[in-house]
């Protein structure tokens, strides 16, 4: 029975998306069933994986070199769980958000399940080529979603996104090809043993693969496509992109670094990635602080937050492993909440210039509360998932004696406080003149409370980390 779970996880969303496409019009409630069912499947999978053994499903039943494995271990299950939870919340949020516009709604309800399925497939894949395919599927589903905000507004951003994604894919693919020529297999489990070390080709392949992923993951200095795309897309889409899509790339990096590519990577490379991460934290936070539009603030915050996860690579101990993954979860939930809350503000104001936020705390109290609570996690203040992750990363940096990362962690938290409170501050500021008349309607309860629920979850992650970290387990291979 459990073997069927990974398969269902991939195919149910795909079929739903196709059904939606064929139907030719939006049927929002069907997606609720899909995301609910998806969550149920993940929870069942969670129960199975919690026993300690990964769940493996063979597709097609071919023999070893040709087989397509779908495998769920602790890391994959956690990512699936994150995706499933966010899928439920975002799907609910999308009902009122896309309600009126028939055409864009249909596009959304078609692309979103496809994206969900692709993400699930990516997390479950155990083969470099399959990973390439799913990564590409994710990208191809994501880019049209960006355009849903209205083609004229976001076409530049989407094109830039497309260019970078393709570039990343090409570089990644080149690396995969090079590696296949060396090792003769692409199966993640078989690769470490099969990779010959000592030659130039192996490390080069690894470098290509990593760089490709970095581009897809929008890590500094490849982040330049991200703010426009994430900032321009509709709120629900921004949430999906920031919380899940880029995270998928980093997930991949974590998985490969500790598995398939382990023989090929060096300490210096780890330090370099760490440096990129730290720079991303500082630069992204600083940029977020300087933005004058709300969604760009949140988008740059994503640039910064992804940097934290890269701090795993130089340290590579269990605490860092757990910290990085947990940061992925916490950031995913918190960032989705932030984008949904920002979307609510935008919905009400009709624009998202920070100046316009002045004194809106009364009509939008709930959304602001969500923004603030999610901000707590982003800042890494207790009790929240972000704090737990920061604690683990700090512990790791002091454990390994690499105290310089401590500075980045602390400074990043303070800068994050800077940009979060900059927004809240404006919202609380009372202007002397009577409040302006607003055009937009007040966002409905569903929109406000899904954001709040996610924000509360981001806080709650700080309280329930023990079982989740147990599920994740120690760093694969016992660390270097």
């Amino acid at each position: 029975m459990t073997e069927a779970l990974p398969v269902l996880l991939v195919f149910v969303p795909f079929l739903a998306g196709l059904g939606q496409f064929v139907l030719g019009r939006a049927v929002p409630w069907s997606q609720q069933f899909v995301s609910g069912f998806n969550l149920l499947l993940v929870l069942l999978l969670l129960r199975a994986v919690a026993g300690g053994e990964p769940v493996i499903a063979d597709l097609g039943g071919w023999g070893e070199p040709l087989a397509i494995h779908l495998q769920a271990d602790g890391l994959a299950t956690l990512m699936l769980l994150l995706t499933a939870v966010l899928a439920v919340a975002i799907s609910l949020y999308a009902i009122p958000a896309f309600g009126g516009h028939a055409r864009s709604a249909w596009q959304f309800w078609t692309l979103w399940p496809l994206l969900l399925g692709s993400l699930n497939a990516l997390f479950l894949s155990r083969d470099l080529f399959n990973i390439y395919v799913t990564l590409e599927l994710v990208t191809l589903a994501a880019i049209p979603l960006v355009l849903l905000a209205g083609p004229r507004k976001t076409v530049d951003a989407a094109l830039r996104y497309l260019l970078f994604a393709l570039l990343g894919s090409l570089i990644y693919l080149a690396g995969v090809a090079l590696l296949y020529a060396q090792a003769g297999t692409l199966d993640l489990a078989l690769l470490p043993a099969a990779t010959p070390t000592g030659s130039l080709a192996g490390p080069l392949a690894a470098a290509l693969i990593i760089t490709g992923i970095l581009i897809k993951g929008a890590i500094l200095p490849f982040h330049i496509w991200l703010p426009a795309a994430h900032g321009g897309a509709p709120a629900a889409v921004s949430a999906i992109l920031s919380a899940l899509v880029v995270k998928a790339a980093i997930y991949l990096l974590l998985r490969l670094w500790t598995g398939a590519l382990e023989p090929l990577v060096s300490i210096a490379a780890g330090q370099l990635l760490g440096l990129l991460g730290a720079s991303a934290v500082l630069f992204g936070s600083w940029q977020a602080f300087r933005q004058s539009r709300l969604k760009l603030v949140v988008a740059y915050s994503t640039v910064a937050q992804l940097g934290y996860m890269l701090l795993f690579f130089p340290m590579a101990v269990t605490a860092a492993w757990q910290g990085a993954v947990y940061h992925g979860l916490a950031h995913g939930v918190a960032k989705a909440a932030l984008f949904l809350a920002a979307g609510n503000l935008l919905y009400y104001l009709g624009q998202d210039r920070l100046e316009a936020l002045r004194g809106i705390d009364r009509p939008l109290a709930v959304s602001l509360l969500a923004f603030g609570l999610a901000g707590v996690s982003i800042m890494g203040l207790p009790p929240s998932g972000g704090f737990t992750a920061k604690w683990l990363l700090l512990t790791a940096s002091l454990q390994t004696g690499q105290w310089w990362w401590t500075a980045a962690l602390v400074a990043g938290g303070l800068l994050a406080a800077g940009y979060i409170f900059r927004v809240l501050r404006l919202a609380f500021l009372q202007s002397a003149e009577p409040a302006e008349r607003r055009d937009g309607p007040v966002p409905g309860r569903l929109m406000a409370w899904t954001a709040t629920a996610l924000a509360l979850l981001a806080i709650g992650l700080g309280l329930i980390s023990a079982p989740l970290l147990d599920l994740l387990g120690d760093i694969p291979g016992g660390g270097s």
Partner: protein
Amino acid sequence: MSLAYQAMPLWVLLSSLLAAAVIFALGEGRPRLRIGINLAAALIKLVLVGIMLLGVRAGHEFIVRLPLMPGIDLVLQADALSMLFISLSALLWLATTIYAIAYLEDSPNRARFFGFFSLCVAATMGIATAGNLFTFFIFYEMLTLATWPLVIHRGTQQAMRAGRGYLCYTLGGGAVLLLGIVLLHGLAGPQDFVAGGTLVERGESHPLVLTLIFALLITGMGVKAALAPLHGWLPTAMVAPAPVSALLHAVAVVKAGAFGIVRVVYDVYGIELTQALGMAEVLAIAASVTIIYGSLRAIWQTDLKRRLAYSTVSQVSYIALGVALANPLASIGGLVHLVHQGLMKITLFFCAGCYAETHGIHSIDELDGIGRRMPWTTAMFTLGALGMIGLPPLAGFISKWYLGLGAVAAGQLWVIGVLLASTVLNAIYFLPILHRAWFRPPKQADDSLAEAPVGLLGPTLFAGFAALAVGLFAGSGWSPLAWVELLVQREYSP
């Protein structure tokens, strides 16, 4: 003992956390219901704290342990030291709630205010009952966040500036504190608060690291405790409404910092180790400098609340000083000042609020002849001010008495000089206010009796008489002094 009884600290915490949640959910409408919930929560908490107080006195153990991360627990426990802080906060919360309800009558955003107000107190309860540094930190940061909306409640540019200053200082302090905690955790593993500390044997092997960690911890706490030069946020934060100032200065924020210092010295490092590392003297000197500096700055302030704020900077360091002198008598003085300063300072801020609310008085030179118009408020202000100077039979005298004795017993006679200088400086900045209020003729022609409304005056009288009573009846078995003596006895004879 049933589990529910043992989990008392959790209920105390939840009583205000739930109140906060309900108030937020209710929103701006239905003010009567909100007031009811507020008062009910405050009363329930008071009852729970009372039960717990009796329990701790009888030697019952209250502890709740929730696993939070692998190897790290959220521990809430009530020991004698917690009870000192928690009783003060619970009692003054009730007073401040009543005061705030009257103070903010018909002003906008009350739901937001009272929601964060309750949250703030919940965080304070958490700080008081935290059983290890990790738990302490969680609530310490929560307090920062919950207080910010209160500081900026008025929403003016000035308030926003104050809010920004507050955040910069406290979040920075929080970051430093976190570093210290992580380092300590890496060095010694998870450590519950235990009287006498748990690090003694590590003191010999890692003196340097431990000194560094101590410095980080104290710096982190020192921001909230307003140790100079980390006090900058406190005077600017006085733009907040009077009940918030009361909360900042007497019940929650500043106290949380001071309480943290006490915890670190007593229950993490232990007095012996602190002395062995040479940090006790450093702390004593830092506290002394703050005491003098705060008083000196207070003299030149012309805004009433600003002067009171600098006075807090000075007074709160008595607590650190008492702890740092590292002998039983001084410890009694420092710890009892935790309560005494709270009572006196809340009285003073309540009075300042009464003046501002009733006659729009903010600056000291507008106070001329106010004693004629508001005799009760001014009498309470007088009690608070004289107590701050350290005159018997007010609360401040008892603190100063034990601090002075402790200084002599510790052989640190220079501390007596500091105490005396502080007394004189306090007199210099408080007595002119009293003089103006009582003996100058009023500037306006109208000097008819016009007291503050009952909602404001009641809590003020309560706090003022409490500040009198804890001093006057210090010798009785139920005074804070008696409690502290018990506590110090336990601390020094493990």
